[in-house]
């Protein structure tokens, strides 16, 4: 950057601040930037030379250009993985904004603040659980021979269902579980914004004879716009990523019969990583994911910036 003013000299302050930043900088180099060079794996036919280090292997492996990507694209799985990853994410994004915003507005209107606190605390709870733990919760309901859902079905004279084998139920189960875990947290976030709205706006509206619904429409929702847009960009930026635990743990490791319904890019990569799939191909999938995501987040931000400069996050 060219500055007109005279360049400031390097001071003792700068040295001290640099020293303070160095540990974190080293962390970023090792855990964020070094892996970025790992994308080369996707363009190589990675070979293991006995007794050599990983870097040696990487450098001496043959360049294959986009062959790994071609293979990935030609395999039928890419279509399924993309469809599932993006499809589920779109549903999560839409419902993950609509439902929590509605609930936040509702809970802000409840008379008793004490009750409202109790509801918030209860609904916040799932946010603090890992998907491993949640998968046991789900199992208690869906297990074929012991699950309470099947006991209930039997009492009602219905057939027991092999929940973990029937793919048709899973889109609903996954969407439900995703919302179950995130709704409370998101609701509280939106509620925090609602609490911050200047009360005099509502007072003025009431004086003008505005109904409850008009107040929500003309005061609450517009005030929530910035945070909604921010949450939207953040989730669109992750549209090629899936919540691995949700898809992998809640289905109990993705049984074969559910593969087409619940596999996402992340579950594919995870399985490939721990199996004997060539590392180049697996890497191609993650590089595709990173690049696609980078483009999406910039695009989403660009669109938002077009609409309203202030709401862009970058």
């Amino acid at each position, binding site marked *: 950057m060219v500055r007109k003013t005279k360049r400031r000299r390097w001071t003792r302050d700068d040295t001290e601040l640099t020293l303070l930043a160095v540990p*974190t900088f080293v962390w970023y180099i090792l*855990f964020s930037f070094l892996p970025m060079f790992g994308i080369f794996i996707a363009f190589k036919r990675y070979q293991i030379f006995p007794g050599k280090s990983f870097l040696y292997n990487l450098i001496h492996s043959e360049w294959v250009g986009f062959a790994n990507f071609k293979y990935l694209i030609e395999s039928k799985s890419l279509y399924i993985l993309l469809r599932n990853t993006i499809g589920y994410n779109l549903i999560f994004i839409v419902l993950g904004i609509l439902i929590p915003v509605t609930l936040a507005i509702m809970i802000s209107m409840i008379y008793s603040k004490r009750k409202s606190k109790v509801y918030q605390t*209860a609904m916040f709870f799932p946010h603090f659980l890992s998907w491993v733990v949640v998968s046991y919760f789900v199992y208690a309901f869906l297990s074929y021979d012991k699950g309470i859902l099947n006991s209930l079905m039997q009492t009602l004279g219905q057939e027991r269902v092999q929940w973990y084998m029937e793919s048709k139920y899973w889109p609903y189960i996954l969407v439900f579980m995703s919302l*179950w875990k995130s709704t409370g947290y998101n609701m509280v976030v939106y509620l925090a914004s609602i609490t911050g709205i200047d009360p005099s706006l509502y007072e003025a509206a009431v004086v003008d004879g505005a109904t*409850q619904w008009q107040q929500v429409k003309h005061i609450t929702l517009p005030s929530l716009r910035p945070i909604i847009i921010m949450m939207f960009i953040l989730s669109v930026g992750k549209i090629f990523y899936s919540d691995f635990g949700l898809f992998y743990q809640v289905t109990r490791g993705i049984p074969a019969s559910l593969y087409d319904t619940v596999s996402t890019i992340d579950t594919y990569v995870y399985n490939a990583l721990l199996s004997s799939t060539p*590392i180049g191909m697996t890497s191609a999938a993650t590089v595709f*994911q990173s690049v696609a995501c980078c483009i999406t987040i910039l695009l989403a931000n660009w669109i938002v910036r077009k609409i309203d400069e202030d709401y862009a996050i970058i």
Partner: protein
Amino acid sequence: MNKGKENAGTNRLNSIKSSTNLLFNTTFIILSLMCIIPFIFVFIISISSEGSIARNGYQFFPDALSLSAYEFLWNEKDVIINAFGISVIVTALGTLLGVALTTSMGYVLSRSNYKLKNFFTWVVFIPMIFNGGMVASYVVNANILGLSNTIWALILPLAVNSFNVVICKTFFQTTISESIIESAKIEGASQLSIYLRIIVPISKPVFATIALFLAFGYWNDWFQSSLYIREQSLLSLQALLNNIQKNIEYLANNPSAGLSMQQYVNQMPAEGVRMAIAVIIVLPIACAYPFFQRYFVTGLTIGAVKG
């Protein structure tokens, strides 16, 4: 006693009708129960007798209660205490390290006169929109840094994330007045001692927020474990729970007196044991989070203010 408080809302200018209030309350009671009941259910299963589970499946009101699952875990306490210890160490060390790394960078980025500010801002920003992907991270951690089967594989990769750094930076920018720092500098304090003696004490809310984000992240992590840890003695509680989903037998190592290994395994209250471990994991969280809940929201609302 709470009558006045209860009705405070009705005096508000923009209050809803009391029938609507009732409807909303009912909705939230149902939703709250939906969030809590699964845990209670799992707890009940963990104290149901194995026989009752075998006869009637999982039930909210089992025929017979039994503590055999917890007794079994007590008998195998070596494994459980070890896993618990790993979870605690990872959470404590990780949180400390993460808070130190995150807030120091946040502070540096908040200094408007710092010469390398732009450079480090990019260092923090680029990983927010681009990363090398899971495979590359795995290769770097496992093959280049050699973290496999060490406790550091559970700690280091999760220590910093850019979102937290930005939260800190924004917090310091908006709450710390330049004059405090200037006057400390005039008195000859170095930036490190300013950070330790001034910033840390007056920024407790943001430190608490970051610490809690990290602590819950570490406590709940099983993914790092599943990638990098094969060594039994390094399994955390979450990893243990993850592993026994398919194969619970390896938990059985200490046959009670007079039983052969096979008898012991056969007698194991397998259903209850799984759920009991889930309860052991969740219980500390369930007890702690109501006190810390507000910091989570603080974090997000600070982060939302553009820096």
